């Protein structure tokens, strides 16, 4: 049965094209990010090697969450194209074990094809990204080339993630002979998340500010935790805050578009947070980076060429990390929204029949993403300010340069995400067009 199913897989372009493109985009960006990190890990610069190693690791860690969000969006897109055929097989009497094996086999084939396409994208991007200058020289194509062994290993890890995400997606739905049923009740997000997050932040604050630590390694660990724990706390508390905001918006919504957008978020605050939560990291880093730049500009100008180079590299690295985080979030939004349009194609076609214009339908979808995005940015910027305040002080935090840089970062990010939304419009036009 699996062989028959796979043989027919590539017969219909509607089934394979979008998931392969999704996985291709995800793995292309993933490979490039990993290649960038490897460039710093193997950089031959004796004096600053450890510093580059540390910063590359931090950047890699920061990008893990948007990367996972992107991967799960691609898997969701794959799931939508598969559901109808799965319920057909259920109708014919396939067991859930058979369906699981089938999903596994199909995910390996489609994600594998996507990762191959992603490798090609990575190869195409290398000359462009290679122009970026770090440690006094352009990274170059050779600097970004992972080599066949590492490339194959990274692709294998990406494939593993993709298959895990696809199988996890199947657990969230119930395949019945009459169709694929998703949850009927909104997901619950408990307040206990907020309590855990606040406790974790409090512990780290106490450790950092009040407990004297003399061990150098321990000091580094606590300093890292001082930045990382609030970041993780934002991820934990985010869906809960989003739920509170959306509930208030649903109650007060004066227009149909706002009401539907708020209800859409309440349907699954966690999923919506995952979709745009990568921006929380970027906004968080944006505040720290913006105040860092303002702080440096207020100090005596550096004279040692190595210091000047390092500071320049750190700034470039931060902006690059932010850009990649936003890019991943924009792609994640694009893939998720495409999946949602396909998921609800009958509903959208019905609404268009009733007389709703594609413009109205798109406005509803834009609000469903942009309003939670505003909430995410508010939470992230607020918590980053709390973290940055004791380090840089109020004067630096409210300096025009800090605010300008932050506004620039957030503005670019929001624009990228909006473009991600725009990219889904052709799918909506096709879905609502004449049958």
């Amino acid at each position, binding site marked *: 049965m699996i062989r028959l199913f796979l043989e027919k897989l590539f017969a219909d372009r509607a089934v394979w094209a979008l998931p392969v493109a999704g996985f291709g985009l995800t793995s292309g960006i993933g490979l490039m990010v990993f290649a960038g990190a490897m460039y710093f890990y193997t950089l031959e610069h004796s004096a600053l090697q450890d510093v580059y190693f540390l910063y590359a690791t931090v950047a890699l860690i920061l990008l893990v969450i948007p990367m996972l969000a992107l991967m799960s969006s691609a898997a969701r897109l794959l799931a939508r194209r598969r559901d109808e055929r799965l319920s057909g097989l259920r109708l014919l009497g396939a067991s859930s074990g058979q369906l699981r094996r089938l999903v596994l086999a199909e995910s390996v084939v489609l994600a594998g094809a996507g990762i191959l396409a992603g490798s090609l994208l990575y190869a195409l991007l290398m000359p462009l990204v290679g122009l970026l200058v770090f440690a006094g020289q352009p990274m170059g194509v050779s600097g970004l080339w992972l080599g066949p062994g590492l490339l194959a290993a990274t692709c294998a890890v990406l494939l593993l993630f993709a298959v895990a995400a696809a199988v996890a997606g199947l657990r969230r739905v119930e395949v019945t002979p009459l169709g694929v049923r998703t*949850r*009927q*009740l*909104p997901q619950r997000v408990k307040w206990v998340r907020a309590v855990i997050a606040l406790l974790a932040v409090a512990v780290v604050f106490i450790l950092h500010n009040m407990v004297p630590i003399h061990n150098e390694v321990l000091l580094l660990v606590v300093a890292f935790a001082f930045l990382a724990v609030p970041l993780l706390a934002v991820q934990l508390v985010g869906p809960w805050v989003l739920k509170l905001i959306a509930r208030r918006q649903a109650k007060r*919504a*004066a*227009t*149909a578009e706002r*009401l*539907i957008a708020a*209800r*859409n978020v*309440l*349907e699954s605050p966690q999923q919506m947070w995952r979709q745009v939560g990568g921006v929380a990291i970027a906004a968080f880093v944006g505040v720290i980076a913006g105040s860092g730049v303002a702080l440096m500009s207020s100090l005596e100008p550096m004279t040692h060429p190595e210091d000047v180079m390092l500071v320049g590299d750190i700034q470039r690295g931060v902006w690059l990390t932010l850009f990649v985080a936003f890019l991943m979030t924009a792609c994640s939004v694009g893939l998720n929204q495409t999946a949602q349009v396909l998921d609800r194609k*009958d*509903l959208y076609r*019905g*609404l*268009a*029949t*009733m*007389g*709703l*214009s594609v413009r*109205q339908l798109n406005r509803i979808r834009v609000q469903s993403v942009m309003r939670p995005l505003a909430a995410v940015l508010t939470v992230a910027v607020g918590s980053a300010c709390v973290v940055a305040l004791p380090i840089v002080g109020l004067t630096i935090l409210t300096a025009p340069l800090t605010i300008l840089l932050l506004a620039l970062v957030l503005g670019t990010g929001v624009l990228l995400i909006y473009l991600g939304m725009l990219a889904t419009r052709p799918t909506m036009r096709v879905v609502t067009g*004449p049958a």
Partner: protein
Amino acid sequence: MSAPFIRETMVCMNTAPFITATQLSKRYGATEALRGVDVTIHHGESVAIMGPSGSGKTTLMHVLSGIITPHSGSVQFQALNRPVELSTLNSEKRAKLRLQHIGFVFQEGLLMPELTALENVAVALMLSGVPRPAAESTAAGWLHALGLEGMEDRRPGQLSGGQAQRVAIARAQVNNPQIVFADEPTGALDSATSDQVLSALLDSTSGRGAPLVVVTHDEAVAARCSRIVRLQDGRLVHDSATSGALPEGHNAGGGR
């Protein structure tokens, strides 16, 4: 069902046909879905469009409701007692006309899963610019009239098939449309529920003087309508209003 509520929403009637369609033809590539169909729909009547798969019944419904335009022929629609030629309107104008003057009921209900029953109905009014409190109040009236009192806050996933379909009927009626089109409205329901839903649909539409057009395969559904028209290979072959089968070459659907 609350008859007084439905009577309050009576449409303004006159004696002229509500829809007059003449010589409708529609092709999909080499396939002729409609071949010179003439049909008129009057105020207060319920018309069942029947026929085998591929006979052109859904195409006829789509042309009569302005979802698509015919390749040739004319569809005169009485919007607010003014005749409007649907085939001359662009897609935006037709969409606006559908939103304001036509109600639709689909086989699967097609309710928004994240909204409550009340919100699903109210949103149809809010999209036409009615403020939310007024929209919710009217929506609640329709839900009560259709026997869904106490279910306002339930989401579609928490309703039975028949209840969900009645919410869909309330959504179709809430704008006080001048005509309602239903595409296999009971196709996904068991016979007892189907009977109840059809009663709700007939009472809420024909009961307030608006015409109802139902596309169906089900003879039992058709039998409850005041008129049956049958299509075959894109031609209208029977109209109960003219008391029987139409002669070969005669393709006219008459009035009452």
